[in-house]
């Protein structure tokens, strides 16, 4: 594999202006497939979720999945698109064994949603409007696994296996208009755009939106033109960039590669590119011209889809609050700083915090627990924080135990571990583990005497007014009581004993 020359990103930006375009495929999470009654389930034994329609047997006919149409309309509305009153499916004809009929049933000149936009907020708060050209319905292809040969590609493979479970899974393909003016923020915008689409479809509940499972797949188009020129350069299309980070890296890499090609005086080749996560680079796929002839024609086996205005308005009324607006509202309500809120969002615990607050915790307490304790543990366990096993009720209960002075913060983290180990509710764990703040002053005074005697020089300093030295004595007491003492009370008692004002 030859390595393409690249320019540094900064140099590329100095010389050229990038234009982007995205095709994002969203797999819908309907119960059944786009055109058949076979189950739409990920991860099952190959070729089990198929019937004669998905296999393209002779004589079969497609039937449109109404829920998929609803989901598509919802996506269109969430992307501020117009919804076509009637639209048709079309056949995209090409011979390839992942498509059992040797044509894909898609939409061509009559997409269900068109002319929309999405406002993308970048990290520093800059808002960038991405125009949506269309969102159309289609069916997914089967999954090919090429055996033998190199790199899992069909070229040179000994044979290929086909899993038609994915064949016929409903897809919505969202196509942007050319995105101009992003400049050096193009890679960041690319990532933010795909993240926003993913968030929207997840928030709508129409897709599982897991990029690692291919629920959301991005093809990224990149072209460069010299600054000041109107006409677009020749584009490349990097296929199936399947993580947010990869989208950013792929766009950055393609900008650098195009810049080097243009600098060399050669034309950029219009082609598809394959993204390689290991080398963070792309390699040439197949040439792609605008004249690829798929011999589209209206699908004669399906009648047009009619989306009455009443139906569209009914669906609009069911749309959840858009994620960006929701974030703005929650940030204000919770009173977090920009940094605090961004950390919460990036850690993926915004929903959990909202639920915890709803269960009775304050915004600060909820953030302290989720960000301070749970996120770290989730990372170690390699699961989403919300899937670790901590419910909002557990946090509310833990916090109450602390506020009531029954346990201290250190014990509370032990109780949390107990909850995660399945030992019961916080109260049960406090009981079982014998965790309780020692509030009887008797044993504490003994421990304080011992600690003072052990560190007479520190005691002297405190007496002399250096109250900040008290930590060493408190530490000794906590150690002696194995952490069960109430540190605040210990401090009070030490000061009392030494006759110093706190």
């Amino acid at each position: 594999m030859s390595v393409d020359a690249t320019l540094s990103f900064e140099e590329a930006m100095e010389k050229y202006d990038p234009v982007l375009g995205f095709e994002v495929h969203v797999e819908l999470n309907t119960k059944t497939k786009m055109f058949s009654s076979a189950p739409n389930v990920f991860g099952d034994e190959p070729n089990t979720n198929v019937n004669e329609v998905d296999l393209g047997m002779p004589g079969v006919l497609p039937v449109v999945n109404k829920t998929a149409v609803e989901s598509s309309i919802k996506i269109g509305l969430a992307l501020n698109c117009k919804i076509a009153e009637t639209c048709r499916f079309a056949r995209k004809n090409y011979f390839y064994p992942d498509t059992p009929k040797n044509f894909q049933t898609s939409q061509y000149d009559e997409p269900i949603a068109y002319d929309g936009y999405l406002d993308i907020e970048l990290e520093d708060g800059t808002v960038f409007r991405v125009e949506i050209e269309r969102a159309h319905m289609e069916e997914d292809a089967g999954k090919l696994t090429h055996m033998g040969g190199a790199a899992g590609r069909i070229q040179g493979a000994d044979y290929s296996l086909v899993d038609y479970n994915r064949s016929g899974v409903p897809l919505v393909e969202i196509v942007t208009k050319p995105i101009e003016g992003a400049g050096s923020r193009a890679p960041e915008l690319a990532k933010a755009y795909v993240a926003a689409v993913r968030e929207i479809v997840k928030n709508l509940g129409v897709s599982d939106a897991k990029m690692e499972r291919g629920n959301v797949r991005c093809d990224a188009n990149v072209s460069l033109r010299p600054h000041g020129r109107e006409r677009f350069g020749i584009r490349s299309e990097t296929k199936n960039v399947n993580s947010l980070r990869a989208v950013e890296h792929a766009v950055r890499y393609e900008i650098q590669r195009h810049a080097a090609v243009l600098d060399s005086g050669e034309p950029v080749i219009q082609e598809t590119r394959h993204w390689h996560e290991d080398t963070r680079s792309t390699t040439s796929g197949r040439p792609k011209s605008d004249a690829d002839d798929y011999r589209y024609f209206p699908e004669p086996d399906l009648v047009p889809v009619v989306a009455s205005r009443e139906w569209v308005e009914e669906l609009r009324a069911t749309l959840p609050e858009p994620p960006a607006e929701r974030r703005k509202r929650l940030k204000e309500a919770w009173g977090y700083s920009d940094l605090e809120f961004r950390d919460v969002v990036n850690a993926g615990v915004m929903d959990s915090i909202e639920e915890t607050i709803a269960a009775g915790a304050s915004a600060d307490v909820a953030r302290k627990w989720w960000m301070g304790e749970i996120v770290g543990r989730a990372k170690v366990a390699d699961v989403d924080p919300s899937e670790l096993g901590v419910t909002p009720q557990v946090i509310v209960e833990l916090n109450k135990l602390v506020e009531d002075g029954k346990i201290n913060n250190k014990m509370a983290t032990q109780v949390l571990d107990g909850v995660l180990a399945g030992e019961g509710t916080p109260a049960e764990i406090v009981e079982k583990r014998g965790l309780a703040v020692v509030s009887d002053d008797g044993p504490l005074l003994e421990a304080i005497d011992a600690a003072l005697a052990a560190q007479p020089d520190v005691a002297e300093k405190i007496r002399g007014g250096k109250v900040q030295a008290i930590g060493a004595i408190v530490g000794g007491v906590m150690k002696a009581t194995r952490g069960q003492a109430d540190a605040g009370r210990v401090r009070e008692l030490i000061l009392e004993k030494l006759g110093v004002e706190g």
Partner: protein
Amino acid sequence: MTELKNELIRHSAADLAAKLAAREVTAVEVTQAHLDRIADVDGQVNAFLHVNSEEALAVAAEVDAARAAGGSAAEELHALAGVPIAVKDLIVTIGQPTTAGSKILEGWHSPYDATVVKKLRAAKMPILGKTNLDEFAMGSSTEHSAYGPTRNPWDLDRIPGGSGGGSAAAVAAFEAPLALGTDTGGSIRQPGAVTGTVGVKPTYGAVSRYGAIAMASSLDQIGPVSRTVLDSALLQEVIGGHDPFDSTSLTDPFNNLVAAARVGNVAGMKIGIIKELHGEGYQTGVENRFNESLQLLKDAGAEIVEVSCPNLKYALGAYYLIMPSEVSSNLAKFDGVRFGLRVLPKDGPMTIERVMGATRAAGFGDEVKRRIILGTYALSAGYYDAYYGSAQKVRTLIQRDFDAAFAQADVLISPTAPTTAFKLGEKLDDPLAMYLNDVATIPANMAGIPGLSLPGGLADEDGLPVGIQLLAPAREDARLYRVGAVLESILEEKWGGPILAKAPDLKNAVLGAVSNTAGGSN
């Protein structure tokens, strides 16, 4: 016994149903009589590609058992329960092979039943077997079948029409009282015309297409083949109705067909002669029988008017763009990957494209290839608007012509085919001449309206059957049955019995010079 069987096979489906209900005969007797007839004559006719004796007799026995049990088991039986039927081999059936008349599907068994087959099973109609056809229903003579041509029972050297020559010949030869056909441009009606039988293409969407191997999806329609108009009405009521598996099937049923076939008069009805569908290009004997039927209808009290559908002159041309375009896409799935024939390239690299290519080269006949190539061309970028796009516009114009015509007439009438049955091999090397057979039947498919062909007598010059076609507005299939039944009864009175009584006795017929393999599609 032979006489009894001979008598049984000559009954209409309606008569057989009555005899079964009255317990004068058993379903097993009726079914066995037809199986015997197939054994006797199908060696000459070649109407059947597969005979389904065992299952047919088992279903018949079930019907007899239910009838013998009496009570609700007998009462719940469908009126046609025990009346056997043949199914065109384009329609998929569990338990029998389905070939579509093509080598590419040789030996293939469908894992599912077509909706119409499910309905036949629900009605407990024994399925006698699968009938021959032009490969993937592409042809007007059955000579394009990969399994040899079917022969016309009126003259074994002549074609039985196509693509549904097998179904029409089976019914004409008394091998079955009923059959299913499919009609994309006349494949039910034209074989009906040249074999002296009745064939109906229902309104597009009246009968589910689920399980009929698609030729041209926007034109295909399954319909009945029979010897009487009433029998076709009975069968259309069995197979019709909305099917959730076919989104182009109509949602509102119109099952007043049998009643319409029994009304018995046409007084006051306006019957329109389509100016463009007779006269020049039509055989004299065909034209004479057509005019005779017009006079008989007039005598029966109908008003005959003349209507013009000027855009019908473009119908054939537009059809030969739309049909092959859909064919090119519908037949793409036959590639050797998942089912049917797989042929490996003889030499060179073994890539998926080359396996697909070798399979399709070996599996498809010439006519199928011709249409795939035509359609691929018509849909290509740069040609789409001029070909497929223009053809769709013609289609709209044809629909408008019919709308205007039906404002002036309740039903329209024409000869079904321009000629009587031609000789095997006569038009095989001249696709255009072959295509012209469907000039009068194609317009109904283009407009989605229903059409019925019934025997109009024998042409004077060759003594072969002539078909009369009736057309009605979409969803008005009942009008076809009403007018068709009246014309049929007047004609039979004139003839002194059914036209098929005049057909030669197949047992004494001698095969002509043309061998069964002549005209194979390669």
